[in-house]
């Protein structure tokens, strides 16, 4: 019964948010872009709205949160009642406050990691595709070998060796993920490099940097941007998984993955509080995926 009810409420919220966000974007958009927003699917509109809300919460965290990030405010595991609207955790910290700070920490770290992986992976990937020959062979075989080890397993191995701090976490995940970005950037660029306009530019005598900057990158942007969204989801989920396993972001920093871990015992008593941070992770990933899916669909045009 509760399941059905929550499903109905969830769907209602989804349609309400999606619909109003689409209307808002349609109203704000400049005239020549209006049709894009008029026909965007509700899922994408919902996704954009959710992403905006997360960004807002993350930037304004200290202003919105009722208590301090690591502040112990009461007894442990208090039920949902004012002033602790979502109760307290096992150390007696306010759950709502930690959820809000989690947006800043978890999402921020995931974003920084993705950005790092992206810059490294895509530059190397494009360069390898353009150069071909031994540069491509050496880089690609090296990446192949690294990719033959499952990502999470490889991250665990590296974290064992280097220890678990936020900085090593970022570097390790970025390194593992850069291999995936490299693969995509290389294959996208390989499709572009065989084009006649690249041959023409080479025959004209253009240098490598200009070829990358003016001839390849503008044409590789669309798939790379979509990939950024997807990679962000992977990184975000990977960091959350590691934190959940107790190997990622450590307390007292508020982080959604470790919040689930710390309070997991509540679940067996039928208390859904530990599902809130897990749900917060899921919601953002869903939102990003919805937007990426829409973009990919638009890019593929009338293919289907």
């Amino acid at each position, binding site marked *: 019964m509760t*399941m059905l009810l929550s499903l109905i409420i969830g769907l209602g919220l989804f349609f309400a948010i999606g619909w109003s966000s689409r209307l808002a974007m349609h109203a704000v958009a400049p005239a020549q872009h209006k049709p894009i927003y008029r026909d965007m699917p509700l*899922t994408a509109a919902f996704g954009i709205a959710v992403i905006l809300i997360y960004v807002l919460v993350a930037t304004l965290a200290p202003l919105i949160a009722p208590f301090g990030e690591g502040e112990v405010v009461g007894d442990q595991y208090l039920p949902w009642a004012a002033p602790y609207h979502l109760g307290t955790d096992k150390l007696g910290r306010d759950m709502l406050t930690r959820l809000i700070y989690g947006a800043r920490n978890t999402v921020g770290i995931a974003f920084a990691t993705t950005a790092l992986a992206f810059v490294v992976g895509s530059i190397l990937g494009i360069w390898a595709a353009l150069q071909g020959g031994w540069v491509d062979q050496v880089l690609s075989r090296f990446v*192949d*070998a*690294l990719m*033959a*080890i*499952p*990502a*999470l*397993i*490889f991250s*665990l*191995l*590296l*974290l*064992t*060796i*280097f*220890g678990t701090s936020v900085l090593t976490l970022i570097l390790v995940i970025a390194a593992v993920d850069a291999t995936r970005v490299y693969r995509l950037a290389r294959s996208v660029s390989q499709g572009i490099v065989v084009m006649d306009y690249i041959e023409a530019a080479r025959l004209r005598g253009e240098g490598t940097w200009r070829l990358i900057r003016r001839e390849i990158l503008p044409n590789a942007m669309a798939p790379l941007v979509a990939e950024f969204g997807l990679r962000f*989801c992977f990184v975000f*989920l990977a960091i*959350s*998984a590691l934190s*959940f*396993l*107790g*190997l990622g972001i450590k307390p007292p920093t508020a982080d959604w*993955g470790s919040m*689930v871990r710390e309070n*997991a015992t509540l*679940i*067996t008593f*039928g208390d*859904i509080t*530990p*599902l809130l941070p*897990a*749900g917060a*992770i*899921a919601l953002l*990933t*869903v939102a*990003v*995926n*919805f937007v990426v*899916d829409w973009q990919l669909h638009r890019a593929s045009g009338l*293919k*289907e």
Partner: protein
Amino acid sequence: MTDIWRMIARRLLLGLLTLFVISLVIFGATELLPGDLARELLGQSATEETLAALREQLGLNDPAPVRYWNWLTGVLQGDFGVSMATQKPISELVGARLGNTLFLALYAAALSVPLSLLLGVLAALWRNSIFDRASNAMALTSISFPEFFVAYILVLFLAQTGIFPSMVRITAATTFGDRIYMAFLPALTLTLVVTAHMMRMTRAAIINLLASPYIEMARLKGMSPLRVVLRHAVPNALAPIINVVALNLAYLITGVVVVEVVFVYPGLGQLMVDAVTNRDIAVVQAIALIFAAAYVLLNLIADVLSTITNPRLMHRR
């Protein structure tokens, strides 16, 4: 036909080579550390004696190539060394747990592969219908869920009422039937996570082919939509679908770690997480190698299968 065998032999060799490189990476990763591994593992407060003991135990006094050789020859004989934390031989720790993890992975595969192929083909057949849109949105949603979220939701709804156990206690004496029953929730969690991916990729692989001129030709020959998909699209989609399945089964390996922790399932994943927490490097290396080997093997099988199903490669001019 000899071409095919030559190609398969080449793939096998390449697989072996990959495994060798992986063993190098897994072993060599410890060399990346700028300082002393023993001090890094034991912390600043360690005494010189304990450090020396650990160095001796890890063989850190030998040059790296010698250590690698000893480690590799040991591994090939099934000897992974001794766990630092428990002082037990690693092969003993790994033995039974490997079986449990394999059981869970195969269980999840048996549920997810048929389900996702069916859903994928149906979604491609009825593309842009309500069914397609709904299943696409559902799939996207479940792809986005962290494994532990899915697991806890299942616990909340299925274990709370006492239908299935939320913790898996498996011993050597547990019967097969009991195993199936007790491992149901972890297997279902993995199935939900993997099915979405596999279904979407199957659908994409088939739809990609539906744009081919030979599909239009089949339709213009008056063939029914079902026949067009099953007889004309699927045989050509086999290679991509096989790769999709392999990719997702390989993903199970990763998923297994988190799911085992949630359900306290006595498998390799749990062991690995404990070992990482204790920085028990020899155990982590051993398990990483096992997971990577499974991953390489899966990709190898997929490679060979997709070669065999490609008529252009099977029937040369």
